[in-house]
């Protein structure tokens, strides 16, 4: 079946006619690796208007655009690029925001190469339209406008219903925005002192500047979303209290999967061993890179080993570099091929001088006087594919090699935090502690919905947003039903 070929042909001529420019994909301007690896400013600079227009003009404006199917929230990509070609940026932003409340964020952190861009007709030649970069440019364009010219999605007529959203990560934010459009009153409860979830405490400033996250969150407040930080649901209020004493008609739980995992090997509690969550939280949320102006310190190692192969590991490694580490090793038990991190992040990490130690599985952290001195590891090789479809690493030689280092950062993934479920006994959980929902995000508890990493386990920003939006639609139905 060659469905794709049939449907994704360029549109027949219409007037005024768009002639796609036959130019190569416009490269993204980036700061020099040697310079940027010493500070926390953004690595990629974004397109200029000329570049954005040029890149947009490469779009074929296919009659049946396949890129849209590749987008987890189905942004009308053809339409927003079409508006860009015509120079109507405000209209283009409006198209984006129809489906995605955080375009400046998603334009920066979405794995477009696996999503929309992989479905672009031009991708066959390896030269897909740089949809993500265009999204970013439009998001930034919108944020640069005076507030009255910004695109603030219209709020629905007051429904008289109140919804509590737990967590201000991508899932919670997307859900809140959507609920406002349906006219429900929304309060977000966030346990930290700042909003954004992983966007704020996890993803580093040099990849996603915090002022961008805050500006996009600000637009939700402009839509009337109330945000209450410093409230831990499960501690300050339980879900039941929200629905009884606090008068909320429904609750969306988007509290993420924030509990860091460790290997369970000897020496993991030595000084100098961090979870990636702690290391990144100290640096991003608490701004330890500005210490002592900001009060939170972070141990600045000279030789840092980061264990893991995902985006989180790349972020931790690149952050360690920026804090002044002379050597940063990325220790991973498979090979680069299997690393779940985005190719772009791997490439940037390498450019910045992060050294890759592949097929290497730590069995012990060694120490002296309470501090880390190194890692002892097994040499691995790849065997048969495992449940994830990737070839499983198997040990070839036990404890055969050591890496000298004074800091170890464990970027091994996260699990569900039991804090909230513990106080909500009637919320059904999976074996691994994630919240069980149906396709629309409904949990086992009437009126309580959930989405994002707390349902799927660690995933992506856009998948969490998609889940938040889907749940909002289902909640809207439920609330209407409940009104009857």
């Amino acid at each position, binding site marked *: 079946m060659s469905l794709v070929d049939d449907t994704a042909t360029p549109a027949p001529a219409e007037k005024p006619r768009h002639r796609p420019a036959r130019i190569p994909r416009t490269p993204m301007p980036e700061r020099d690796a040697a310079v940027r690896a010493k500070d926390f400013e953004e690595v990629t600079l974004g397109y200029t208007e000329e570049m954005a227009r040029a890149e947009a003009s490469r779009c074929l404006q296919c009659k049946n655009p396949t890129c849209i199917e590749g987008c987890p929230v189905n942004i009308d990509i053809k339409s927003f690029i079409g508006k860009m070609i015509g120079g109507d940026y405000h209209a283009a932003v409006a198209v984006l925001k129809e489906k995605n409340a955080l375009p400046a964020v998603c334009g920066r952190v979405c794995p477009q190469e696996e999503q929309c861009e992989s479905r672009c007709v031009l991708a066959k030649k390896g030269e897909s339209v740089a949809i993500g970069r265009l999204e970013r440019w439009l998001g930034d364009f919108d944020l640069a406008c005076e507030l009255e010219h910004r695109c603030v999605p219209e709020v629905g007529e007051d429904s008289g219903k109140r919804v509590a959203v737990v967590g201000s990560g991508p899932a919670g934010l997307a859900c809140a925005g959507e609920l406002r459009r349906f006219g429900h009153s929304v309060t977000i409860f966030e346990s930290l002192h700042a909003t954004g979830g992983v966007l704020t405490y996890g993803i580093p400033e040099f990849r996603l500047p915090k002022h961008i996250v805050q500006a996009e969150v600000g637009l939700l407040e402009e839509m009337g979303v109330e945000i209450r930080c410093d409230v831990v649901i499960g501690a*300050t209020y339980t879900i039941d209290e929200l629905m009884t004493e606090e008068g909320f008609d429904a609750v969306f739980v988007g509290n993420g999967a924030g509990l860091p995992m460790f290997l369970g090997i000897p020496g*993991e509690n030595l*000084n100098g061993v961090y979870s990636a*969550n702690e290391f990144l*939280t100290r640096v991003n949320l608490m701004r330890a890179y500005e*210490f002592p102006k*900001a*009060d939170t310190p972070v*141990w600045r190692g000279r030789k840092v080993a980061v264990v893991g192969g995902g985006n989180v590991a790349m972020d931790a490694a690149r952050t360690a570099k920026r804090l002044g580490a002379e050597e940063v090793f990325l220790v991973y038990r498979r090979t680069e091929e299997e690393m779940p991190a985005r190719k772009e992040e791997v490439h940037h990490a390498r450019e910045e001088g992060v050294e890759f130690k592949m097929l290497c599985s730590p069995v012990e952290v060694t120490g002296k006087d309470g501090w880390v001195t190194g890692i002892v590891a097994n040499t691995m090789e790849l065997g048969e594919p495992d449940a994830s479809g990737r070839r499983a690493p198997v040990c070839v030689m036990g404890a055969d090699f050591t890496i000298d280092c004074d800091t170890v950062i464990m970027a091994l993934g996260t699990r569900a*935090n039991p804090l909230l479920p513990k106080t909500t006994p009637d919320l059904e959980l999976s074996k691994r502690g994630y919240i069980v929902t149906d396709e629309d995000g409904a949990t086992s508890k009437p009126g309580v919905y959930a989405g994002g990493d707390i349902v799927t386990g660690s995933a992506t920003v856009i998948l969490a947003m998609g889940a938040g939006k889907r749940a909002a639609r289902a909640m809207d139905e439920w609330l209407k039903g409940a009104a009857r």
Partner: protein
Amino acid sequence: MFPIVHARQLSDAVFEMGVHAPAIARKAQAGQFLMLRIDEDGERIPLTFSDWSADEGWIRFIFMRVGKTTHQLSHLGVGDSLADVVGPLGVPTHVEGLGRVAVVGGGVGTAVAYPVARAMVAAGNEVTVIVGARNADLLILEDEFRALPIKELIICTDDGSAGRKDLVTAPLKELCESGAIDHSMAIGPAIMMKFCVATTKELGVPCVVSLNPIMVDGTGMCGACRCSVGGETKFGCVDGPDFDGHQVDFEELMSRQRVYNDDERLADAEYHKECSCHS
């Protein structure tokens, strides 16, 4: 913002502060803690509740002036506010059905011992309180303890300027030896808790301790608060702060508490350069 509604100096370096936080006050229980951040540049620090009033909507905590944050905090008073206060966090102290209990408080840990002793009394236990301080000037909450219907208040100072000239472990040992207690709880500096544990372990009396590891979020998200208990790694903020003292690796706890000593000295020095309000 959380308005400060009460501020009192208890001794040379120890302060009590009250904050308007009705939602937290409604839920607080003995042994639980809060995280606070003074301002935008502030660090998040854990402090255990010393008192609270659900009716009046306030919570109180007691702190010792040691580093930059606590110095800064000690200069704030009624009319000022704190940027962030979060809680109540951690598992409440288990107070039911303990029988005859000794509650040991040392230094600012005494502030935590107070609501714990109060809750244990309210739960029908027979409570003996042992309070330790370096000297009479550093002794806190004596009147408050005396106002509780406890069996006995034993005060120990290093120099004998109040009560007995002894370490808290001396009366604790006597109580264990004479079979006067079934259970004990120690709250204070890690080193004090370590010795209380050694004393009680030898004599076969259970001893719960309230650990004070370094924390960042206080909700289980970072693992900064990792402690080894019975050979397993626990997160102090969500699994604790109370643990079976006989199982705790105190050497590790004390080592981990020292990670940022150099940084703290630097922050403190920088702060004193700018702050001319005291010597």
